[in-house]
């Protein structure tokens, strides 16, 4: 797959002297959904802003669709739609006009039918003549998305689309994202909600302190980094894990009615078989077994801990 966004050694040092991006390299493939995960202040917004032209890169380069975002900004930006993190809308403009405005700004001829389709898709059609100031927060966020889609971008940036958004809107948004992906639109979303990345992303990038720690296929990442847990339920509750089982680093479950064993799916010997044998020799009676795959959240927290 060719990359549609290509970021090379991108560095941003704000005027305050703060280095928000440290030589970021990232290739984004055409048609994929990439989730950029990172805690607050990691540099997600700065990265998107530098690609979209809102922040001036200190050094390095970015190209979108093969066009340098600085030298050839018109061609590059033609392809890009941006949904900013903050709700930044002209308060007294009507919804329909606001979306038509965005379309014009991107050099497209007026197309009321297209604008109507976008508004309907986002359940905004009933509100088309409302002033933005009169809308709820969730509705305003829909307007931001509609504005970004007004010129039919090939690459869509969603900066924290789920921040402060109710479940309904989040579901709607995911379905819009799925539709766009079906049309071949590349989507980059930033989030610090791991469920979001887990739910919709093809690939996950983890960013912290202005550095990309890793970018990987979501499924592969979960497989590679994923740890599994084996829970063994016991007939008699335990107060402490017996000395004889110290090697397994077992955790006690609630009320000591189970022990939890964490193992790496990658390793040759998981240790499950010997554990079960040793449990029996320690005189513990097992009533049930279950396993659990660790989530992206566990992986993420693990990665950030490693960083420190």
């Amino acid at each position, binding site marked *: 797959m060719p990359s549609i966004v290509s970021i090379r050694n991108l560095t941003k040092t*704000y*005027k305050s002297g703060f280095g928000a991006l440290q030589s970021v390299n990232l290739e984004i493939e055409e048609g994929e959904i990439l989730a950029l995960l990172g805690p607050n202040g990691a540099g997600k917004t700065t990265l998107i*802003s530098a690609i*979209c*032209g*809102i*922040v*001036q890169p200190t050094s390095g380069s970015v190209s979108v669709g093969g066009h340098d975002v600085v030298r050839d*900004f*018109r*061609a*590059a*930006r*033609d392809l*890009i739609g*941006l949904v*900013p993190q*903050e709700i*930044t*809308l*002209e*308060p*007294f*403009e009507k919804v329909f*006009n606001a979306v*038509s*405005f*965005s*379309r*014009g*700004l*991107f*050099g*497209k*001829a*007026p197309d009321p039918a297209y604008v109507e389709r976008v508004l309907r898709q986002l359940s905004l059609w009933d509100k088309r003549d409302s002033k933005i100031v009169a809308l709820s927060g969730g509705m305003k966020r829909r307007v931001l998305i509609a*504005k970004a889609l007004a010129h039919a971008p090939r690459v869509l940036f969603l900066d924290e689309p789920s921040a402060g958004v109710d479940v309904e809107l989040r579901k709607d948004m995911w379905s819009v994202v799925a539709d766009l992906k079906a049309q071949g639109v590349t989507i980059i979303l930033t989030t610090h909600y791991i469920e979001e990345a887990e739910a919709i992303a093809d690939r996950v990038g983890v960013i912290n302190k202005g550095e990309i720690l890793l970018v990987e296929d979501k499924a592969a990442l979960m497989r590679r980094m994923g740890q599994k847990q084996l829970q063994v339920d016991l007939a008699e509750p335990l107060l402490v894990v017996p000395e004889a089982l110290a090697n397994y680093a077992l955790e006690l479950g609630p009320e000591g009615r189970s022990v939890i064993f964490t193992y790496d799916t990658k390793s040759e010997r998981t240790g499950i078989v010997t554990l079960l044998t040793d449990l029996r020799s320690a005189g513990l009676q097992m009533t049930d077994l279950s396993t659990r795959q660790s989530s992206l959240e566990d992986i993420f927290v693990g990665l950030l801990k490693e960083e420190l």
Partner: protein
Amino acid sequence: MNFPATRVIFQREMARFNRTIIESLISPVISTSLYFVVFGAAIGSRIEAVDGVTYGAFIVPGLIMLTVITQSVSNASFAIHFPKFIGSIYELLSAPVSYREIVIGYVGAAAVKSILIGLVILLTAYLFVDLPIAHPIAMFALLAVTSFSFSLFGFIIGIWAKDFQQLQLIPLLVLTPLIFLGGSFYSIDMLPGIWRTIAMFNPVVYLMSVFRWSFFATADVPIAASLLAIAVFTGLCLAVVWWIFRTGWRIRQ
């Protein structure tokens, strides 16, 4: 050139004007009328004709300039400061537009508003005084150029200002004195020697002089000097705007 972008910016700014058209036009009409009552009738009747023009007629070009300059600066500065303030400027910065499309849209709309207001004042003036216009085309051209160049100036102020207080500061501290001391309501020939010399450093003097010339065919300073001053001022503003967008000063972090 991305023409649709310029068009939507221009239309949006004009729509803002239309929403408040009554206030936008009524207030200059009222203040013009007040000036006529106070200066034209009450005081003006005791002032002898200036260069053979009754004082009531003499102040008309000054009144137009006063309003056009202040309206241009306040409209254009607000128009760009507001999106900067609420953050909606992100859209301009991330769209495939260069500073040309942005400036023509914003400054063009502000200038058109000022021209309309200037013409309304002129019509109001006809209710009070007989007013010859010696060079109507030049008059209109000067009105348009003034509206444009001060809207450009206002645009710069709007980007420079960090808050709404600073936005008010320049008109209050710089423009109003320059306009009042710029011969809006008197001929600078009326000033005593040293003040006349000082006045020559006030750019508004050159503008007022040539604008009054378009009405009464007499000027305080040579026409060429006026035109040069206007060209230099407009050129400087254009250069500053070009530099702002090139460097991203106060718009791009």
